[in-house]
């Protein structure tokens, strides 16, 4: 079930200083994570990014994920403490057509010496607020047993 990304998350994603990490698994079950500066939110509210290398492990794992309905994790971190995890389902890989060619040209304006493998589109299905203070409060409320005694003496 798709979820809508909040304005805060959209802004964090759009901020060029934020760090976006895409984590996938493949057929072998081995996790793989890669920093993706091109992560954005498209008009449909889906996550979108470019995969430059067609032969990359990331691309291979995304194909595995779209074929077998596996989720992908996208971590967004913006200094000083903003952090979100988006779980998303790959819904489309664009490998040709006007949209592909437009992104190909845009990419070349920034990186003239690289190719474009695919544009990947992913539908967000779950969002977790990973800010430390939020996660600490959540744990103290849900699992009061999980803490050192000296902190509550």
């Amino acid at each position, binding site marked *: 079930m798709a979820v809508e990304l909040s304005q805060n998350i959209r802004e964090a994603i759009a901020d060029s200083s934020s760090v976006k990490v895409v984590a996938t698994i493949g057929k072998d079950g081995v996790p793989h994570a890669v920093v993706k500066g091109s992560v954005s939110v498209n008009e449909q509210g889906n996550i979108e990014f470019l995969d430059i290398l067609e032969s990359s492990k990331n691309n291979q794992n995304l194909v*595995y994920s779209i074929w077998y309905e596996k989720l992908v994790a996208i971590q967004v971190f913006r200094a000083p403490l903003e952090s979100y995890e988006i779980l998303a389902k790959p819904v489309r*890989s664009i490998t040709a057509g*006007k949209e592909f060619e437009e992104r190909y040209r845009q990419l070349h304006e920034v990186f003239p010496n690289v190719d474009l493998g695919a544009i990947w589109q992913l539908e967000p299905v779950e969002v977790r607020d990973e800010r430390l203070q939020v996660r600490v409060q959540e744990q103290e409320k849900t699992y009061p047993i999980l803490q050192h005694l000296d902190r509550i003496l």
Partner: protein
Amino acid sequence: MTEEINWRTQELSLDEVLQKYPDVPRIWALKVDVQRRGVVYTQAAKDMINPAIHQVNTGTIALFRTTQDYTPESLIMRDGSYLITNFDLNKNKAFREPYVVDAIDGHIYIMDQGKVLEEVWYWEKPEFYDKTASNGEPFNKYIQARPQRIDINLNQYCHFWDKPGEGCKYCPMTPCFKMRHQTEEREETKYIAEAVREALKQEGRFSAILVTGGSILSGEHLFDDELDAYIDLLQAILGDFQVERVPSQLISSAFDERQLERLYRETKLMTYTTDIEVLNKEKFEWICPGKAHHVGYEEWKRRLFAAVDVFGRGNVTSGVVLGTELASPNGFASEDEAYRHVIEEAEDIISHGIPLAANVWRTAPGAIFQNQKNPSLEYFIKTYREFDRLAHHYGVNPYTDDYRRCGAHPGMDLLRI
């Protein structure tokens, strides 16, 4: 359209095949079945065609078709792979109902028995399709396009058909040539080269060039004239590239070592393909009598293996028309028997570093086998699955024949993961 009334009860359905082989992806199995059964388009789907954007069958030449209707040339799937559907259906003897491409709320879907199965998109035509060469002829008279590949069919007639009864029985190319009353076998190289230069102006559109055509037997030695024609063309279209080898593929007759050396030395061609077509000597001799008579199965294979020494491991592939080995009356008696023979032979070829690009055999109108029935979905899935295991095992990956440069060999898609 005449189908066998109870065909759905006579073989495993897509869902049943997926239950039996749960390790294969559903979207991929559907793709195989669409190639096997074919598609028809509803009026709503045809209304989704924008002729200014999309590539349609009426907008290009049809080497392998007896008819050209106003339908999308082919489809793109959500996994970024291409689903080739630009083939004729034998409407007089279809055996099975084709899948339906329909439009719902502005989206296009593959459907079966009223059930939505997959969203698809139409191929977009390249910019050169709306332009003309210096002689005023449309560029797409000389070259055609897939979403990421330039296609050049140099010789549109195959000379294995010169002697009655020697043409490959599944192939409609030369029968279609005759039905069109075409007389010129080949277009001029200079206009083909002009068209390629124009096509390459479109940034991001093309990542490969395919050159192929019918066999030419003449010359001092067998296929020498064919080789000369390809070298002339490849020099004209690849010469301007500033690299030693251009991402390109030639699918030709089986050249001998001397011819292969010339091809490699005199052009910037990167990969070479010669199609063994049928993975069994006895069935090959029945189905491809011209190839058998002029070259022979074992010699075709030997030349294929020799090509690896010239072009390098990973740069030689061979095409197979998977399923013809079950044609009647001389094909294998059962799918199990065919599977055993085909896999044994496939391993011999793949183990030499030559991946197999296998088409789903469709009974094309015009071909000698036009009224045959192709095998079950299970046969294709099971065989492709084993080809994939062998390709992974021997570490070969035919990028030129893959999901996006070609799209006609669904088995290749499995190598994406």
